[in-house]
């Protein structure tokens, strides 16, 4: 009965997957089929998954990605076939599918990193638009990927250790002697892409996403960039108790290595009496990690409040923390010790016991002249019942018995009386004390020691019997005892190294942050180790994607034509290898963004295709990655620094008219630096800038520029849509030169592709105040539409909008910084006059642009 009903269910589901016109029914059918956990249906499931993976609806494809995991857990032998499906689905450009397929990838074949290469850039770019759960999975996968593919952005020897600056410089100079041609570190653009695209996700409302971005930065970003995650992590502390717990654990691990990151937020870790105990202990841990000479007094004052807490477990933890501060910061050791001694008279047993244990550790680090404290503790001994504390006092007295010669034998006498009633740990220490006293003061203690050893001999605990036997042979001379006897004193009273008080989070950094394993501090099933950075980066070109010609509207074809030519010209003009490869990358990225909306369609299914919009390219995506088409235009070069004023250093710049790689709101500028002096110039870099708020992405310092050599570097400047000059200093090792880059208004734009209809619609929205126009008289040579395009494009970085009317030329662009639309239209009238109209919110820009275009069109 059951079998037959399953059978019919199966058939029905299969029929639906293949045939139903509604995508939800198809998806649900697949969900049902894949949830039947019977091995017999494996082949059918496989078929269904393959079918669904090729479905036109992204929702059905998403469901198929889920089904992959189900099938894999049902029958792991299908792995090879499933990997094929995963490979196919990874190529999918829908944001719906991305998260689910990466999840399947992680489950089925996390080691097949080669499948990611081609999809890496796409995943990075889609990331912001993927649903939040998918983001978490993708980010953690990309973290692992990046660790295998890029070289370390952390400089040699300077990994995390902030206090080790000096050593770092030393090793550096040594290395330089060895091989002078060591290249400065240049971050792979793909590595940068990942960091840049994950950054906005720090503002996510989903705490898991924020945490995963934080761990990505921790494991992948250059040292100085990691601190941008601090604020967001501290923000998560306002969230639910459970979230706090996990976040605090991660901060604790981070704060051991990088105090500086969290020090400004120290007060956010202050403990409230209403916090749960484990939250309190974690906060305490972090405060202790953050303690340094400057803030220790504030922290100790805070600790004083905690010691008095009603939560005794927490008070005990605070005492431990004070002990750690005392050993780490030598300035306050004495203060802490005095404070702890005061606590010995506390009424609460646990507090006293904990203080004794901590004092014992502290005294061991500096045993000089603390006999007063030992005496004080000996007096307290009768009142303390916590075994650990009693044992600690006994050990202290034994170790420093020569400093308290009168008290020690008396304590031993008392112990002899109560020996049988003590805990094991106390008994062991009693035996220990007896042995030490026997060696130093045998006259007074010989009998007592023998008595205790006899008691120990018949103790129930084998550990104590064993110890007693050992001690007896060691200290009591007899004919059988050999050479060891002579060394008994040296063995028992050897100076002992002081214990190191360390954070319990010290070794947690072996696990990737944010993982279950990190939280439990033990390796969880299925934990994937984060590999070390490779010494040499693997081939970068594996991530390049072949260019697929976009087969869109006419306008796009036209512009892609011109794009090719411009990229060609760009290549020939650019001087250095690095920049040309960079521009190549740019081009590819552009291609990629452009081809996204296209979708390969299966003709057989075209009839059911119409019901859904296949484009899953969301609104937000276009905000992050504006669809750009680079336009043709001759490159104008401007002088930045003349070689006469620059003492041999000359600099020229031009606008390559490409989206800036570093930040989308920046305008890309290429600077050609050349050395026309007769000696080499060293350490060329960018110094102070004004206004100070000006955000510039500097080029990496050029270590050395030989005479007659030149190098092209690219930088990004955020002009904030104004033509105000960016002033900064160009520095060499010896000199500084103030230079400024004043952009033409047309360079503050980037092309935007749109259809004629869209153009008119947008233009309709930007009427009135936002419209500027002028009638111009053109040179006859300029009257053709090609000539107009050429002239307009020479002054402004805008895109051509294809026009159905002959007498109209239209251009569209967006301002780089704010993304405001700028629309230029030119209507040819009779006798070579024309009406030039510019529509944009940025009215100041409009009038300047109008002037520039007018000038370009009226001159020959």
């Amino acid at each position, binding site marked *: 009965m059951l079998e037959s009903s399953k059978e019919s269910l199966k058939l029905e589901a299969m029929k639906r997957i293949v045939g139903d016109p509604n995508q939800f029914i198809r998806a649900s059918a697949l969900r049902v089929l894949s949830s039947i956990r019977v091995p017999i249906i494996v082949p059918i499931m496989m078929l269904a998954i393959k079918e669904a993976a090729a479905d036109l609806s992204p929702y059905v494809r998403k469901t198929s990605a889920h089904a992959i995991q189900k099938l894999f857990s049902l029958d792991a032998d299908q792995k090879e076939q499933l990997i094929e499906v995963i490979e196919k689905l990874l190529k999918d450009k829908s944001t719906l599918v991305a998260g689910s397929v990466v999840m399947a990838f992680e489950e089925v074949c996390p080691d097949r990193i080669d499948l990611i290469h081609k999809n890496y850039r796409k995943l990075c770019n889609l990331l912001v638009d993927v649903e939040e759960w998918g983001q978490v999975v993708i980010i953690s996968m990309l973290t692992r990927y990046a660790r295998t593919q890029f070289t370390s952005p952390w400089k040699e020897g300077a990994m995390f250790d902030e206090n080790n600056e000096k050593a770092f410089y030393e090793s550096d100079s040594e290395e330089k002697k060895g091989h002078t041609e060591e290249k400065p570190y240049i971050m792979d653009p793909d590595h940068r892409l990942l960091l840049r695209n994950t950054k906005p996700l720090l503002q996510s409302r989903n*705490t898991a996403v924020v945490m995963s971005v934080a761990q990505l930065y921790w494991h992948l970003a250059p040292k100085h960039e990691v601190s941008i995650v601090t604020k967001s992590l501290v923000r998560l502390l*306002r969230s639910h108790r459970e979230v706090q717990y*996990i976040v605090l654990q991660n901060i604790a691990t981070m704060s051991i290595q990088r105090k500086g990151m969290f020090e400004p937020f120290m*007060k956010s870790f202050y403990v*409230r009496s209403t916090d749960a105990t484990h939250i309190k202990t974690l906060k305490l841990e972090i405060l202790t990690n953050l303690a340094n000479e400057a803030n220790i007094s504030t922290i100790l004052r805070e600790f004083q409040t905690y010691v008095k807490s009603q939560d005794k477990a927490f008070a005990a933890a605070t005492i431990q923390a004070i002990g750690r501060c005392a050993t780490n910061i030598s300035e306050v050791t004495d203060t802490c010790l005095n404070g702890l001694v005061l606590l010995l008279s506390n009424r609460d047993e646990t507090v006293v016991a904990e203080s004794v244990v901590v004092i014992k550790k502290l005294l061991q680090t500096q045993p000089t002249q603390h006999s007063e404290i030992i005496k004080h503790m000996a007096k307290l001994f009768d009142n303390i019942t916590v075994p650990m504390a009693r044992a600690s006092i006994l050990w202290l007295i034994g170790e420093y018995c020569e400093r308290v010669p009168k008290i020690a034998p008396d304590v031993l006498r008392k112990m002899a009386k109560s020996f049988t009633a003590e805990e094991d740990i106390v008994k062991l220490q009693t035996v220990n004390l007896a042995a030490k006293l026997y060696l130093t003061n045998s006259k007074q203690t010989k009998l007592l020691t023998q008595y205790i050893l006899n008691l120990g001999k018949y103790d129930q605990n084998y550990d104590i019997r064993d110890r007693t036997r050992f001690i007896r042979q060691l200290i009591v001379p007899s004919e059988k005892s050999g050479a060891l006897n002579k060394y008994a004193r040296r063995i028992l009273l050897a100076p002992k190294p002081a214990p190191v008080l360390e954070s319990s989070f010290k070794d947690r950094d072996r696990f990737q942050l944010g993982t279950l394993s990190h939280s439990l501090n033990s390796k969880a099933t299925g934990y994937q180790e984060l590999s070390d950075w490779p010494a040499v980066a693997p081939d970068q070109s594996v991530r390049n994607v072949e260019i697929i010609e976009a087969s869109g509207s006419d306008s796009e074809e036209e512009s892609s034509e011109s794009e090719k030519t411009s990229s060609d010209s760009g290549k020939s003009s650019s001087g250095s290898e690095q920049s040309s490869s960079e521009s190549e990358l740019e081009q590819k990225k552009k291609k990629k963004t452009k081809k996204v909306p296209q979708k390969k369609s299966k003709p057989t299914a075209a009839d059911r295709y119409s019901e859904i919009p296949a484009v*899953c390219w969301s609104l937000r995506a276009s905000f992050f990655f504006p669809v750009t088409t680079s336009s043709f235009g001759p490159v104008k070069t401007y002088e930045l620094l003349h070689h006469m004023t620059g003492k041999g250093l000359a600099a020229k710049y031009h606008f390559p008219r490409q989206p800036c790689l570093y930040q989308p709101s920046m305008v890309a500028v290429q600077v050609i630096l050349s050395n026309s002096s007769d000696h080499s110039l060293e350490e060329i870099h960018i110094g102070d800038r004004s206004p100070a708020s000006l955000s510039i992405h500097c080029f990496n310092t050029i270590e050395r520029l030989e005479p007659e050599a030149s190098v092209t570097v690219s930088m990004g400047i955020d002009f904030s849509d104004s033509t105000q000059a960016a002033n900064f200093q160009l520095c060499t090792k010896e000199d500084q030169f103030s230079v400024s880059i004043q952009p033409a208004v047309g360079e503050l734009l980037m092309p935007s592709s749109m259809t004629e209809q869209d153009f008119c619609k947008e233009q309709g929205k930007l009427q009135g105040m936002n419209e500027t126009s002028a009638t111009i008289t053109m040179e006859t040579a300029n009257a053709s539409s090609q000539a107009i395009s050429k002239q307009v494009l020479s002054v402004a970085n805008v895109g051509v909008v294809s026009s159905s009317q002959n007498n109209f030329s239209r251009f569209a662009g967006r301002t780089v910084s704010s993304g405001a639309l700028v629309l230029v239209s030119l209507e040819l009238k009779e006798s070579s006059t024309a009406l030039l109209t510019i529509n944009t919110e940025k009215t100041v820009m409009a009038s300047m642009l109008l002037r520039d275009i007018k000038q370009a069109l009226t001159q020959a």
Partner: protein
Amino acid sequence: MIHSLFLINHSGDIFLEKHWKSVISRSVCDYFFEVKEKAVDPENVPPVLQTPHHYLISIYRGKLFFLSVVQTEVPPLFVIEFLHRVADTFQDYFGECSEGVIKDNLVTVYELLEEMLDNGFPLATESNVLKEMIRPPNILRSVVNTLTGGSNVGDTLPTGQLSNVPWRRAGVKYTNNEAYFDVVEEIDAILDKSGTTVFAEIQGVVEACVRLTGMPDLTLSFMNPRLLDDMSFHPCVRFKRWESERVLSFIPPDGNFTLMTYHVSSQNLVAIPVYVKQNINFFETGSCGRLDITIGPKQNMGKTVEGLMVTIHMPKVVLSANLTATQGNYTYDLTTKVLVWDIGKLNPQKLPNLRGSLSMQAGAPKPEENPSLNIDLKIQQLAISGLKVSRLDMYGEKYKPFKGVKYLTKAGKFQVRT
């Protein structure tokens, strides 16, 4: 990822279980109960536990434990965040998240859980999408359903899931179009014995209730956005616009949602609206103590402080309190040792005062530390940071919506050490 979910009530009964993969025996929860026994206070149960074969990740919400079982490595926050989302969804559907309500709506609860996870991976967690598939219960429908044998499963398909704005359902229609925004700020502070501020910061949240027809595109701008130091947004907010222009531009979900949360930069001095004069003494002999608390207005920007309340967790040895309040009432719970003084409105002319004696267990030593005071208050029509909404614009739809903004300042974790 998430293998199973158990709902456990305060007394430790498992009253609901749901498995997304194979069935895991209830006995796995025994490990959890063991820890729970030890922890005494349910707040103290660690959220992540390890058992020989499974990992248990739990949250504690509304006197219920949501305990999930996972078998392999997974970011713990992923699970925790999801469990809270489940609890939020229950709250959203049934008005509260308690054992009784969940038991009353078992069918809907199972339907929801089935849709929220597929094979342990979150599928649909947006409340708008869920509500299209599974309708929230109401009395009329449940009556009809019992009579006709129908269910709450919606007969439309959740198209929102496919659109590029998955948080908004399609075809929204209202006769009254309205958009309300509540700017709620909470003051977190620790004051020490002498009244000086040890630590203070402001956390804010913009809650929205948007009932607008069609696909409106809203832009909300602030008079002084520079105040905001760190924020997180609902996924609908276009981050890029915020970065460049400091305005919130978004297509809103339908109904209630949290638009953004923010943190006001710590450089700004935080105004503390009240001051507290307190004197709590426990005497060495006679096993009694004295308590004297006065509260007065400090920096409240000319507004009235309302809903004033003081909560004190007394030491275990305090048996009873014999106090007189010049305003409001006080209660002392003998079992939990919590003293609550509900004051109400703060009258600057006549400052509220609570004084009297505390009697302690005979023979017990006097408590080491004085209990700290937790203060609760509300100030209407004021955002203590000074944040102001300057305007709300709507694009994409023709009608004129009704717009409203409300401000409220509350005490968050406001503690006075004594």
